[in-house]
C-alpha cells in the first residue's frame, strides 16, 4: 500500500506548511482510490490514538475511587 501511495505521490499526512490542501486520489486511477482510503484510515486511526490514548493512561482521580469503594462497603 505504501509503495502504491508513493507511486501516486500522495502519502498521509499530506499537509505541509504553505501547502494546506492537496488534491486527493484524483490523479490516481482504479484500485488506487481504495488504497488511498485505506491509507487515510490508517493515518486517521494513528492520529486519533495519539490524541486520546494518554487519557486512558492517566491516573484515576482518587475521589472517584473513594466514591466507588464507599458504595461497595455500604452495599
Amino acid at each position, binding site marked *: 500500500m505504501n509503495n502504491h501511495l508513493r507511486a501516486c505521490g500522495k502519502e498521509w499526512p499530506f*499537509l505541509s*506548511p504553505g501547502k*494546506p490542501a492537496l488534491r486527493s486520489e484524483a490523479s490516481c486511477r482504479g484500485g488506487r482510490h481504495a488504497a488511498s482510503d485505506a491509507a487515510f484510515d490508517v493515518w*486517521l486511526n494513528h492520529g486519533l*490514538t495519539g*490524541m486520546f*490514548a494518554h487519557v*486512558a493512561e492517566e491516573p484515576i*482521580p482518587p475521589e472517584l475511587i473513594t466514591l466507588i469503594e464507599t458504595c461497595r462497603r455500604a452495599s
Partner: protein
Amino acid sequence: MDPIETQDTMQATDNKTLATQEFHDQLIAVLPSLRQQAMALTRNAHDADDLVQTAVGNALAAKASFMRGTSFRAWMGSILRNRFLSDYRRRRPTTSLEDAPDASLARSGRQQESLAVQELQRHLGRLPADQRLLLIMISVQGMSYEEASEQFGVPVGTLKARVSRTRAQLRAWLMGEVEKAPKEVTAPRRRAMPSPQMDASPVLII
C-alpha cells in the same frame, strides 16, 4: 427453617454479594475507557472528569438496572452519553478548540508538531459530539460495532455507515474540500438499554 431453604437463602445472599463485588470491580475497570469517551464528548479535561463523576454516581444509584450478561462498558457508556446530552451539551452547545488545552488533546511528541494532526484536531471539533464519540470508540478504543450498537441503540449497519461518513468528512475537510459541517438535528431517541438517566434530550443524526 427448612435446611434446604436456608441453604438456598445463603446461596442467594452469596450470589448477591458476588454480583455487587463484580459491579464495583467492573466500574473501576471501565473508568479509563469512560474518561476517553468523556474527553471525546467534551474536549475538555475538567468537563470530562465532571462528566465521568456524574455518570459514576448515576450508575451506583442505578446498579440494580444493570442486566448481567450484557456489556457493562456499553451500559456505562450509555449513561455517560445521556448525561452529556442532557446536561453538558445544553450548558456548552459547542466547545471551541480554544477551550481544549493542547496538553489535554495531543501529547504525542512529533505528532503534536505535525500540522496535519493540528488540522485533524481542529476538524474533530467541527464534528457533532456524538459523531466524534463514535469515531473514538471504534478507532481508538477498538470497540466492536456490536458493542457500540448496544451503547447507541442504533443498528450495526447504521453505525458503520456513520463512521464511514465521518471519516470521509474529515478527509474532505483535511484536503480543503468545501463542505458543510454535519448538521445536528433532533429526532426521537432510540433507547439502547434501561437507564434511569435517559430523558427526552435530542439525539444526533449522523
